[in-house]
């Protein structure tokens, strides 16, 4: 199966799932939404309401309304938030930069800590610093994200008072995008949230890299490379390259977990991103926003899984021979 056909097949498989999630979002809107009152206000007469029902197409058959709902969603028209009285699409666009910057920095950080720490722990297997590193990784894997964040605030913001505990700091607007990566206070505000979000990932990656690296260092090709007289650094590079193959796949899948737990991190640090918007909307039962998130999450995870599969194919040519099955 060629890569193009694989992508096409996977996208086709995703369509029923996406349509199902859209149906759930549509049902939510059907039960809770009241577009007539929303557009006319509570004082409208019965005749005005009937006219609005006809004009909005609310008396059309359900399948037709469902198709119209999907069509509107595809054009980015996701309804109007009942809590904030603003279009959901605009709200999401406004919150997107904060989340992308937080998740992006956390992802890079987790790769750096995970790969660097894992390689170190494998090379200096019995050092005391390695034991410390592994103990820290046990905490990183075990502690729930909100607890990591709260404890970091307790230490660095409440006790030592060296870093801010909430908000994004100063942001600079670049066209439609706001960035905190160009100001000092923006970076300072990013430290604790990014560490919190990266804690679980980096601990997990650290363990994966360490295991893979230990196997690689004990293998024939490394012993042979040493026998050939290659320098220590070059040998380590060969071993690391071999240990990383499963790690890249794991990291790509973990990108999804990162997105999920940015919801928690953003709440802990009052980070004005997509996750905070979702939590506030769930707490206030803001139906159009929740419906939009259902579809957004489904779409995002289809994309992440496809990207992870393609990445695996790119690294490990053996997978290309047999048709890749499963979801």
């Amino acid at each position, binding site marked *: 199966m060629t890569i193009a056909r694989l992508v096409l097949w996977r996208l086709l498989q995703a369509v029923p799932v996406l349509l199902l999630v859209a149906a759930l979002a549509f049902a939510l809107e059907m039960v809770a939404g009241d577009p007539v009152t929303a557009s006319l206000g509570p004082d409208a007469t019965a005749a005005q309401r009937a006219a609005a029902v006809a004009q909005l197409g609310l008396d059309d058959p359900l399948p037709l309304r469902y198709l119209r709902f999907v069509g509107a969603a595809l054009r980015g028209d996701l309804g109007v938030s009942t809590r904030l009285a603003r279009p959901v699409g605009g709200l999401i666009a406004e919150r997107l930069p904060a989340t992308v910057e937080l998740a992006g920095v956390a992802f890079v950080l987790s790769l750096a800590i995970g790969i660097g720490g894992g390689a170190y722990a494998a090379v200096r297997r019995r050092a005391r610093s390695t034991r410390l590193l592994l103990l820290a990784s046990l905490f990183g894997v075990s*502690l729930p994200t909100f607890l990591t964040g709260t404890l970091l605030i307790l230490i660095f913001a409440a006790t030592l008072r060296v870093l801010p505990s909430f908000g994004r700091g100063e942001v600079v607007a670049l066209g439609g995008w706001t960035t905190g990566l160009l100001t000092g206070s923006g970076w300072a505000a990013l430290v604790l949230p990014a560490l919190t979000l990266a804690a679980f990932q980096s601990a997990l990656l650290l363990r994966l890299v360490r295991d893979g690296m230990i196997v690689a260092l004990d293998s024939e090709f490394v012993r042979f490379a040493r026998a050939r007289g290659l320098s220590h650094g070059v040998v380590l590079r060969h071993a690391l390259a071999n240990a990383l193959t499963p790690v890249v796949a794991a990291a790509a899948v973990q990108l999804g977990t990162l997105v999920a737990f940015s919801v928690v991190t953003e709440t802990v640090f009052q980070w004005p991103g997509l996750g905070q918007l979702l*939590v506030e909307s769930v707490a206030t039962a803001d139906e159009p926003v929740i419906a939009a998130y259902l579809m957004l999450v*489904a779409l995002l995870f289809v994309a992440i899984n496809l990207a992870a599969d393609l990445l695996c194919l790119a690294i490990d040519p053996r997978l290309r021979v047999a048709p890749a099955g499963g979801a």
Partner: protein
Amino acid sequence: MRRLGLGPGGGIAGVVLAVLVLAVIAAPLYAPQNPYNLASLSLLDSLDPPSFLRGGIGQFPLGTDAQGRDVLSAILYGARLSFMVGALAVALAAAIGVPVGLAAGLAGGALDAVLMRLADAQLAVPAMLIALLADGVARVLLPRSWLDGAGVAILIAAIGLARWPQFARLMRTAAHLEGQRDYVAAARLVGIKPLVITLDHILPNVLAPALVLFALSLGLAVIDEATLSFLGVGLPPTRPSLGTLIRVGSDYLLSGEWWLVLFPALALAIPVLLANLLGDAIRERLGPRVRARP
């Protein structure tokens, strides 16, 4: 414990965890205060530090919160709620996932394809996010007046719905393999009804891995509960779980009342760490076949 082959670390973790859970279940027998009984609280006692610090009172070993509630009692009752929600949520996940997995594994064909496609699609999204969205959907669909009373039920349903695919996946594989055994073919030949074969012959033989997954999922479900309560979409401050306590306490982080966060945080972190150690030991013993996912 040695007979189970869990090793010393897993054994100790298991024993301590069991003692902790029993202590929390029995909390109403010995807790200094009933934190739900507002009449027993006095605002004069509000924000007292722990008794081992200057200004603390012996009556409140871990200090008090802004309402004058004893933090130790609140933690004991909160942990009870957290553990109960976690256990019932996993029970719900198993109650959905086991039958679905059995049906998919034994029936095969289109039913199998549809059910497993559904399970896979849901598995791709972390359980916490699914639970949060399920919580949101429930809040939209249920009348507002129900929400306070149904908080616990919504939470259990949301977490249970988020975790069923793992049980379904595991049971499907096990049931599929078991269905090809000779004793099943023999039972079919004798003319025993398929439902009876499934329940009396196959189910007992595939239950062991489901029980292990059940145990491994408990800690994760407790974390799900604590996370949702921390986010403010779980249990209300009037009936606080550990997550609610940490959320309320974190408002006092910068003003110096650190005991409101640290003690509930430890009460959550210690059992979860122990459960992870125990889980690692069980996995080591059984091989990587069973794995709970965050």
